């Protein structure tokens, strides 16, 4: 069975597999080596960044399932992240629920709330849906800040370091393994989703919803399913943030965060699991690098250091605009092009 890229398969099993060529396997091995070696070689600052990347990957994969794969835009995911974080933090700090159980409950609660706020998608599309999810963002944020009895209002919730199976999860090094273990499972699960019927149904709805219905897909049900899976993953990311940072405040779940996650999947590649990973990495590394840079130039060029927050925003905005202009399909597309180039190298065709 031939593909347009010079790869041949002789069985359906091989055709269905994710890793197809030897180059794929070599690449996978390299990634595995980097992931395993990273915590041993990274400085404390960059190890923290790595952990943030891992959590961002989980959230970005989640948002991409909804927005990139199903074509339903959400501006409420920052707040959904908060639902996961608050639920887990409250359960642990106030009710002494074991962390693992708290996280599972937080995922369930976020799934329900995310799906509920997904109901407008049954009627609305595009910008109108964006407005409806924006309302969700504001309603939830209002609840975080003002529902004092539950969320503690504008006071931060402090969460104790978790103990999982008698193992104190405290250092960035220990967290790294947990976060990346979960992130890898999420990525694999998502990739599997998109080589079978449910993921295909999401794509069908994104590309042509009337045709999807006519082919037998219950469009409404699948839209809500997409909201459910998406919010579950975002809830998971939120709950993990709560326990990793051991502090939960409403400022971390504002509209900025929703937009940041949208930026991740746009820069990485809408509708691509790998793109979510690239986008989450890129959008976490860039501000960290700018911050690091600012720290280094603090003495030599103080004015520049002072303006860093503004510069950071400008660079960020510029990056997004440039991506939209030159690579609307994101980093994933750039990567595919490089791969294709070398696979057929030195022959272009």
């Amino acid at each position, binding site marked *: *069975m*031939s*593909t*347009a890229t010079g790869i041949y398969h002789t069985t*359906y*099993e091989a055709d*269905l597999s994710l890793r197809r060529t030897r180059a794929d396997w070599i690449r996978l091995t390299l990634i595995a080596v980097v992931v395993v070696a990273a915590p041993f070689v990274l400085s404390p600052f960059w190890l923290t960044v790595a952990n943030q990347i891992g959590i961002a990957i989980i959230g970005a994969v989640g948002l991409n399932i909804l927005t990139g794969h199903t074509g339903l835009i959400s501006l409420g995911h920052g707040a959904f992240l908060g639902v996961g974080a608050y639920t887990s933090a409250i359960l642990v700090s106030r009710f002494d629920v074991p962390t693992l159980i708290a996280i599972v409950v937080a995922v369930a609660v976020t799934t329900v709330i995310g799906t509920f706020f997904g109901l407008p998608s049954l009627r609305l599309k595009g910008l109108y849906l964006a407005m409806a999810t924006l309302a969700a963002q504001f309603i939830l944020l209002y609840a975080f800040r003002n529902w004092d009895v539950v969320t503690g209002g504008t006071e931060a919730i402090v969460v104790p370091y978790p103990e999982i199976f008698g193992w104190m999860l405290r250092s960035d090094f220990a967290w790294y393994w947990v976060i990346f273990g979960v992130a890898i499972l999420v990525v694999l*699960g998502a990739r*599997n*989703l998109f*080589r*079978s*019927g*449910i*993921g*295909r*149904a999401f*794509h*069908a709805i*994104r*590309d*042509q919803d*009337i*045709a*999807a*219905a*006519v*082919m*037998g*897909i*219950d*469009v409404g049900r699948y839209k809500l*399913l997409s909201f459910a*899976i998406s919010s579950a993953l975002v809830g998971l990311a939120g709950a993990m943030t709560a326990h990793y940072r051991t502090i939960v405040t409403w400022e971390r779940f504002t509209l900025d965060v929703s937009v940041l996650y949208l930026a991740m999947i746009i820069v990485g590649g809408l*509708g691509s699991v790998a793109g979510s990973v690239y986008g989450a990495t890129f959008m976490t590394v860039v501000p960290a690098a700018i911050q690091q840079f600012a720290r280094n130039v603090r003495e030599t060029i103080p004015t520049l250091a002072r303006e860093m927050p503004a510069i950071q925003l400008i660079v960020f905005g510029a990056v997004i605009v440039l991506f939209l202009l030159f690579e609307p399909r994101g980093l994933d597309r750039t990567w595919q092009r490089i791969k294709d180039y070398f696979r057929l190298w030195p022959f272009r065709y």
Partner: protein
Amino acid sequence: MSRAYRHNLNGSDLAPGATQLEVDDVALRFGGVRALKGVSLDVRQGEIHAIIGPNGAGKTSLLNCTSGVYRPQEGGIRLHRGDGQTHELTAARPHQIARWGIARSFQNIELFKHISVLDNLMLGRHVHMKHSVWKTALFFGPARAQEIAHRELVEEVIDFLEIQAVRHAHVGALPYGVQKRVEVGRALCLQPAVLLLDEPMAGMNTEEKEDMARFILDVNDLAGVTVVLIEHDMEVVMDISDRVSVLDFGSKITTGVPDEVQADERVIEAYLGEEVA
């Protein structure tokens, strides 16, 4: 068809010639526009039933009512099954109607553009598959076995429509004629009881038209699938259809075998009227 196919593409178990689809006094309005004015016709199991008429006659609207995209204000459309059961289509939603075996193509290609030909065709299998989030996330085991089982039928449709070379291509990048073919393929993968085709040959050159006509005849002849065909090319229509219904300004003028219809005064008038207008 050049070789034996293992899968039967026909999703109906009615006896050939029995009434399968009953359109009963269907009226459809869009505000002041009366797209269908009490149309009745019946489609028999195993026939190729062409629906013709001038532009704006209501052909596509009738198909849309049948597949649940539009809901007519009056009348009903019933689908009869081999076990004696009857489904009322005008009260059902599109995805339910697909489950009952009505598959269709669209006048303006409505494929899933950003995915591969294979995925488009696999979506034709959607109603025949089981979908569980957990099994899917694990993939190995039941989910993969199911993919492979359904892939076999899809590959037969690919062979049948002679689109082997493009199976992994993204649909959006394919030439128009191939896209038309893929769209018919997607409908076929549903193993339809009735196949509704809305101008499957529009915009094609003679050679492509001949290929498409051959596919339609083969699906009908060899697999026994009932075909409802909207087509403007009279030569093709008269060549391949068993019966022809004529619509004009939302009303049905007549139904008959091609020769009768061709000779019918009112039909000639409807078409002449179009030329004058």
